[in-house]
């Protein structure tokens, strides 16, 4: 039975779905990376994703246009981000606690809306695979990388874009400085509040897309609590990736590959208890996090509200 895992078709299947499964993590983690680099820990990612997933699904279902769905998810995510920014930047709330509040709000609200507006589980026809000309014809590689839907490609393009913005632009310099030494940034006329509003709202938008990628691109359904902890894993991946987009990519790939492997183990009926298989990615995350704990330093001002002494 185990030997089935090693056939070429199965291996390609595992890798292709691993690539696909990393999509929501990438959107959410890259968004969270921006927030954390500017000094804001947003634990509400899960809630933003759930509302994003619902908004995308509901709008796509009612309008029949998937892009309207994505747009709706972005707007909902931005609004959640705006609220989070107000609470953390203006009201100086404890970020860990307010984030959990936003998670619970998103969880409850998405379920309420689902019950009121839909009531039963329905499906939509999600984003279809988009074959990249020529590249998708390469044996193996084409199937794994170049036969995915558009939101998957977007997630991977986001990584170099985020790296570039963070490291090569003045905007990135401002974000990093605000996260490391907000007093210094303030003394040079950088508005700490404005930068943090920007990163938190950007994080919300990306979390919204992460939710949409689940409900209208990967699973094509909406269910209560369908993210089941995915948003929290996304936060952990930011730590895992050392607050760097490429590191986050590595973490997301590792996690989703293991996840894909355990799914295939179940599909193929390999006699490992499914509970154990489902646990694998999570156990792995904890192990890797422990192993890499002191590798890189967190942004110095992470979770620290900023207030000018006056």
């Amino acid at each position: 039975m185990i030997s089935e895992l090693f056939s070429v078709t199965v291996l390609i299947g595992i890798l292709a779905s691993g690539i696909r499964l990393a999509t929501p993590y990438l959107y959410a983690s890259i968004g969270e990376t921006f927030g954390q680099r500017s000094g804001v820990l947003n634990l509400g990612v899960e809630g933003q994703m759930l509302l994003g997933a619902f908004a995308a699904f509901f709008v796509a279902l009612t309008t029949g246009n998937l892009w309207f769905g994505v747009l709706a998810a972005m707007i909902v995510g931005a609004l959640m981000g705006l609220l989070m920014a107000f609470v953390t930047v203006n009201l100086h709330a404890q970020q860990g606690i307010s984030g959990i509040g936003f998670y619970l709000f998103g969880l409850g609200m998405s379920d309420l809306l689902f019950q009121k507006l839909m009531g039963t589980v329905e499906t939509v026809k999600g984003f279809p695979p988009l074959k990249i000309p020529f590249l998708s014809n390469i044996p193996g590689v084409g199937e794994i990388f170049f036969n995915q839907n558009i939101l998957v490609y977007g997630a991977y393009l986001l990584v170099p874009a985020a790296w570039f913005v963070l490291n090569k632009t003045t905007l990135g310099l401002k974000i990093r400085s605000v996260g490391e030494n907000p007093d210094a940034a303030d003394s040079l006329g950088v508005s700490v509040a404005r930068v943090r509003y920007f990163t938190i709202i950007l994080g919300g938008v990306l979390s919204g897309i992460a939710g949409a990628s689940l409900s209208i691109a990967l699973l094509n359904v909406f269910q209560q609590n369908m993210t089941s902890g995915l948003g929290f894993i996304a936060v952990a991946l930011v730590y895992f990736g050392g607050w760097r987009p490429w590191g986050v990519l590595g973490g997301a790939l590792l996690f989703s590959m293991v996840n894909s492997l355990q799914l295939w183990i179940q599909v193929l009926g390999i006699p490992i208890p499914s509970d154990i298989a489902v646990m694998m990615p999570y156990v792995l995350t904890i192990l890797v996090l422990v192993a890499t704990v002191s590798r890189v330093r967190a942004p110095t001002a992470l979770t620290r509200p900023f207030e000018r002494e006056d």
Partner: protein
Amino acid sequence: MTNQTSSTSEIPLIVEMRGIVKRFPGVLANDHVNFELKRGEIHGLLGENGAGKSTLMNILAGLYRQEAGTILVNGKPKVFSSPRDAIKAGIGMVHQHFMLVPSQTVTENILLGLDDPRFIMRLPEYDSKIAELGERFGLKVDPRAKIWQLSVGEQQRVEILKMLYRGVNVLIMDEPTAVLAPQEIEGLFETLRAMIAQGKSVIFISHKLQEVSAIADRVSVLRKGVATASGVASKGVSRQELARLMVGRDVIFALDKKPGKPGDVVLDVRDIYADNDKGLPALRGLSLNVHAGEIVGVAGVAGNGQSELSQVISGMRQCKQGQVILAGDEVSNHSTLFGIQHGMAYVPEDRTHVGSAPNLSITDNVIMKKYRKPPILKNGLLDMKAATKLANELKQAYDIIVPNVSTPVRLLSGGNLQRVILAREISGLPSFMVAVQPTRGLDVGAIEGVHRLLLAQREAGAAVLLVSEELEELLSLSDRVYVIYEGKIMGEVMVKGEGHDEALVDTIGQMMTGTPLDQIQNEGVAANG
């Protein structure tokens, strides 16, 4: 005021502050202060800690907003609502605590918040621009280096460059010499003179008289928020006169230090190695000893292992190798209680977080080393009556100025808090005391009190190890001074008699920047031959 030559009075004013008022909860920090800065001068701003110097300059730099009064720049009234506004008007400030991002390069720190580069940064272009600017003002620093890789002196240069790059004409330096070794101070002074030569003006905030006399053209003095002198030519005023303006009474500079009569070795630190909080080596084979009836100083630029040394001695940090022997017993790598039972007293650098429990009363704080024994311990319980009695006695004996001993210590001034800590430590009749920066942040009167208490310990026959960054303090109190650099002792010098010994200061200065004593002496011999 006095001795204003006609030539200086013709130079136009670049900054004029009129009737500045600033209040903080419970404090009138600036009370109708006037301040004038001329183009091309170095203007010393003197005052004790808490006199309102930094507040006044933070207003000028746009960080605080005044409640009353006006600021004129080149004769035009200006309102600054942020540091950015002040910089636009040509006024920049280098703060005492540097405003730098350690994980970023020099260039990145300098470019932060500017409109050029617009969006995409092309760092190499700007690296060379900044190198050129540094060249012009004698501020050598590698633009590509990360801030955390730089020494404190270099970081200060980055701060100055940051302001020069923004084209400021007025540079405010807040206590710039506090973090520097003597040679670095000379380098800073040269830079400031180069700036003046190129038409800039400098405001030099300090509480050190001799520095202000050395560098400033004119001096203004603040005391308790009021200007007691404005724009006095520094050549026409004596140090004593300035001190009186600062403190409001005559300060006795000479301490009553009796000739030492050192006894047996009390503390013997043998070849210790220890790591800092980041797990990097902080002490590398350090040895020193302290005799009974002796104050031994440890000089050095901050961050060369002083904190770790005092922590290893007091038992708050493990050492990896070597021994600390107190009165014949090894106390290193034991509990702090073990050291205390062997006669150890510890006055830590951080008064509010290590030295005291801020929310607890004076009484609670002074019994922290005594509660295990009668009279405070009675039938297994605390006898609060006895504790209060003790606290009141100490309040009397140590001049702790506070209505009553149930006051939480967080409400005390720095000087009073230090007296509470010293009262607790000294009243245990220690045979050895390690005091780290015991006068940091205290005003002149309080410093004098602490110095007297330390000398009294010496006369009572205790061994005292004094870790300080104030060279003057070390030279006036110590019998011997060790100089620490990167966790090693560079050498040991005897302090003879009173007064300022230039050669001694120079030797210590060289050791503080990493030259071992034996090499300095060799150079001296070579020069003579």
